[in-house]
């Protein structure tokens, strides 16, 4: 098999706080293959956003990458020279943030905000006067592709002159303007109305097909994952607890946390079915016992769980961090 587009191995990210070292990401390993859509699921604080801030090279003090490796197209990104990283960001790996309202600069026109990416990375743009014209054309093309009507006329508008859905489209257009190989979409739907959520996800899916890029969809919504992702990785307390093909993970979860997440989702067709929230709370990431991090909340806890549990493959393409992973539920 060819090398994956993005390969994260044993990534560890910690934040120095007054209370102690917070290990926000603790040994995360995952691959993103060419052209696939990988779903990253986890609650707030599970480390899903921090992992990909690490991929983008955007961990700032007091945060620090403590160890592990991030390889993109075979190239090591941990410790990469800042200038080289800058050229990579926005061109090869792009990211959209949760809320377009706060992610677009209110003081600059959207034209400025999309053109600057194109001009910063446009090695293939012509030089001189034609450069700006070519960049404008690309900006308009991309805005049209994401479904912004009359794109050319909107270049001079400010973000506040766009509706919520259009702002989200604009942010996606900016992220995709240099046609990256990988798009990291950090909770692309959380800040949107339900009706617009579907539009934005459909848009990402269709552009993914058009441009042939890989997508990492960070979300806490298993429904979104089921609909759009080829594979899924579930994060809990800074570690991946389960990963595998989406359909298999959803129909046959092998980690009690994944199972718990699935049980806590209301199903519209069976509203009479009771919802089972997971009891207890996410552990404090400062003083963690060596054993399974889900242990205090786990309905199936046993003695072996007090020892470190390895994240291990138990079937083709599937892995989990649970001593009971081999046994189907």
């Amino acid at each position, binding site marked *: 098999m060819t090398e994956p587009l993005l390969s994260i191995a044993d990534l560890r990210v910690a934040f120095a706080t007054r209370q102690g070292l917070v290990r926000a990401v603790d040994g995360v390993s995952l691959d993103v293959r060419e052209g696939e859509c990988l779903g990253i699921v986890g609650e707030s604080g599970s480390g899903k956003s921090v992992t990909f801030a690490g991929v983008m090279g955007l961990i700032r003090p007091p945060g620090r990458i403590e160890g592990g490796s991030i390889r993109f197209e075979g190239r090591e990104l941990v410790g990469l020279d800042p200038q080289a990283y800058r050229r990579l960001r926005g061109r090869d790996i792009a*990211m959209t943030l949760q809320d377009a309202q706060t992610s*677009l600069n209110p003081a600059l026109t959207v034209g400025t905000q999309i053109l600057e990416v194109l001009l910063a990375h446009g090695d293939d743009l012509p030089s001189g006067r034609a450069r700006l014209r070519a960049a404008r054309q690309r900006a308009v093309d991309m805005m049209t592709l994401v479904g912004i009507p009359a794109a050319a006329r909107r270049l001079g508008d400010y973000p506040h002159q766009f509706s919520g859905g259009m702002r989200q489209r604009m942010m996606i257009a900016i992220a995709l303007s240099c046609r990256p190989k990988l798009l990291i979409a950090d909770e692309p739907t959380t800040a949107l109305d339900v009706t617009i959520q579907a539009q934005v996800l459909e848009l990402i899916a269709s552009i993914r097909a058009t441009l042939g890029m890989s997508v990492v969809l960070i979300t806490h919504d298993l429904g979104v994952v089921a609909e759009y992702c080829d594979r899924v990785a579930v994060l809990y307390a800074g570690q991946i607890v389960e990963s595998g093909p989406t359909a298999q993970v959803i129909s046959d979860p092998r980690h009690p946390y994944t199972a718990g997440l699935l049980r806590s989702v209301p199903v519209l067709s069976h509203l009479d079915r009771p919802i089972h929230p997971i009891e207890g709370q996410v552990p404090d990431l400062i003083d963690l016992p060596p054993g399974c991090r889900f242990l205090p909340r786990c309905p199936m806890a046993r003695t072996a769980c007090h020892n470190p549990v390895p994240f291990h493959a138990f079937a083709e393409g599937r892995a989990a961090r649970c001593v009971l992973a081999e046994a189907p539920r």
Partner: protein
Amino acid sequence: MRSVALLQRLLHLVPVLFGVTVIVFLMMSLTPGDPAEIMLANQNATPEQVASLRHDMGLDRSLPTRFVTFVGHAVQGEFGLSLFHRRPVAAVIAERLPATIELSAAALLFALFMAIPLGVVAAVHRGGILDRLATVGSLFGVSLPGFWFGILLLLAFAVNLRLLPVSGAIDFAHQPPGLTGFLVIDSVLAGRMDSLGNALAHLLLPAITLGLPMAAILMRVTRASMLEVLRQDYITFAEAKGLGRTRILALHALKNALLPTVTVAAIETGSLLGGNMVVETVFGWPGLGRLVVESIFVRNYPLVQAAVLLYAVTYVLVNFVADMLYTVLNPRVRM
């Protein structure tokens, strides 16, 4: 569209300026002491002579009548005779005004060029040595009284090191031909580099003294708003776009962070006007501030009245300019 809004905003100034005029007029009328009596105080004047002067000055008429006359004259730039100079107040002020504007502008420039870069650097390297130096320095800047700091500068640079002149706005030998009254501009217009150098050397210390407290406050405001802005999602997004550090700081961050700085700068320009009186006195600066101080001592009421009105109008206009600048920086408040 924008010019209509601009016009509306300008029309709003009319009632404000009218209010200011009423207040200035009333304050001067209610101040104890009869100008006519003060003018004739040392001349053993008879009550008839005082009454005659009061009549000449219009002081025997009713307050509303005097107000209408005052406003009528004021809009034509007529503020009566300066009692001390025996010349029209407007002419005396016009003579002194350029020096004050020049000094204030220099102080404002000094403050902005100190405060904005320092504020940005302090915020970016929060907790670093430069940040701490700038923060402590700004505390000094706000706390040092202008008259004391000015004298200190004079002692160091003019008296001991003899690097800079002690007082005045220019040396007689370097006086450029007076076209505008602004020494720096006149020097450039006349192509007199010696005059320009001399004028700038005179300008340096008073401008620093006058601008320092403002620089200190603006530095703190810029630092605080920069810290706030750097936490915003749009900065993270700009970084994720692979933009250079300079572009992110100078365009994405600063354009948002300058909003509070502009507002405070406009308010502080008011205190610049007050600071002028102290600094001009310390440095023997031939400006309006010193003229007003001298006029207060000799109870030159017409001049003080006109100057106070001028200060008030300036203050209102500066805030108007700040509002306009605000709409440039912040597209959301564009009408």
